[in-house]
């Protein structure tokens, strides 16, 4: 199988694996208590998984991001979060500040270091 066909197959399998939970939710509604301990566990697991994903992308990225400096990526997270808090939780201010800082830091690094 070609690499492209395999990626399409993988994508469809991931779609099915995601839909599994959606469909089960419809079929089981009214029969399961959404406040049960199992669902607290599920939400903890999903939360920890996404935290792990983002940690890995920021600390050890692949592709384009691998060409940038770890220090810049970490500082960008701090800058974006501070801007987000200072702007009373405005996501756009946070993201824009972070991205501008990141571009500036990467540029300065390429010119002077």
């Amino acid at each position, binding site marked *: 199988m070609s690499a492209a066909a395999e990626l399409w197959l993988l994508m469809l399998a991931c779609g099915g*694996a995601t839909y599994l939970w*959606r*469909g*089960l939710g419809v079929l089981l*509604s009214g029969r399961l208590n959404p406040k049960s301990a199992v669902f607290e566990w599920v939400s*903890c697991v999903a939360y920890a998984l996404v935290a792990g994903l983002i940690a*890995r992308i920021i600390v050890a990225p692949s592709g384009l991001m691998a060409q940038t400096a770890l220090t810049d990526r970490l500082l960008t997270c701090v800058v974006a979060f501070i801007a987000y808090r200072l702007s009373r939780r405005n996501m756009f201010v946070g993201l824009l500040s972070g991205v501008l800082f990141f571009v500036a830091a990467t*540029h300065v690094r390429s010119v002077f270091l």
Partner: protein
Amino acid sequence: MTSGQALRAGAREALGVPAAVLGAGFLGYGSLAGDAGYSIWLTLSATLAIWALPGQLVLMEMHAREAAFLATVFAVSLSAARFLPMTLTLMPMMRGGSRVRGLWQFLFAAQMVSMTTWAVAMRRFEEMDVGARWNYFLGFSAICIGSSMLFAVIGQLLIGALPPLARYGLALLTPLYFFVTLVGEARTRTAITALVCGAAVALVLHVYAPAWSLFGAGFIGGTIAWAWQGSHVRRG
């Protein structure tokens, strides 16, 4: 409210902050997809078929690192397990009113559920007539999905056209979006524990078993956070 009015009300409310915030996340996703060599059709199909940005990112990340097929499907599935309690609570609220809807219609609506649509619907349904909820949800979701697909395409076209420096900024957009969301919303002890443990387990496992690092982060990090919360609840 007629069904047409409810549909438009949902669409109108989505066409603001919800569509823009999702747009920012998917703009970055499109740019990462372009960098990873996805075709536009694959990007759009993945958005429609998975319709969960964390899962889509897990898939892209693990495929880029040549993780095994099943390991990737397991990790994506684990990241999507939160949809079960979400549809479980949402679908019963959309039942009722003058129209009786079949099971297949609910199975279809379940595909449109996302963190954003669920959170808004749960809040707005309380003050809404039961009959209006279904169309409101469809209108709101359609705009969210449409805007996400549009911005993903824009991101994918931009990544090839922009100068290198701007490309770096675009590629960092989605990880940054999740970082700010996760850290910004982590206000309980359980959430902070899940965040810290998930990140730590992922980074440690990344060195030893990269294909299983995300699955392990969710399973181990999540269980530690959950168990710790449980021990606090029991002690009162």
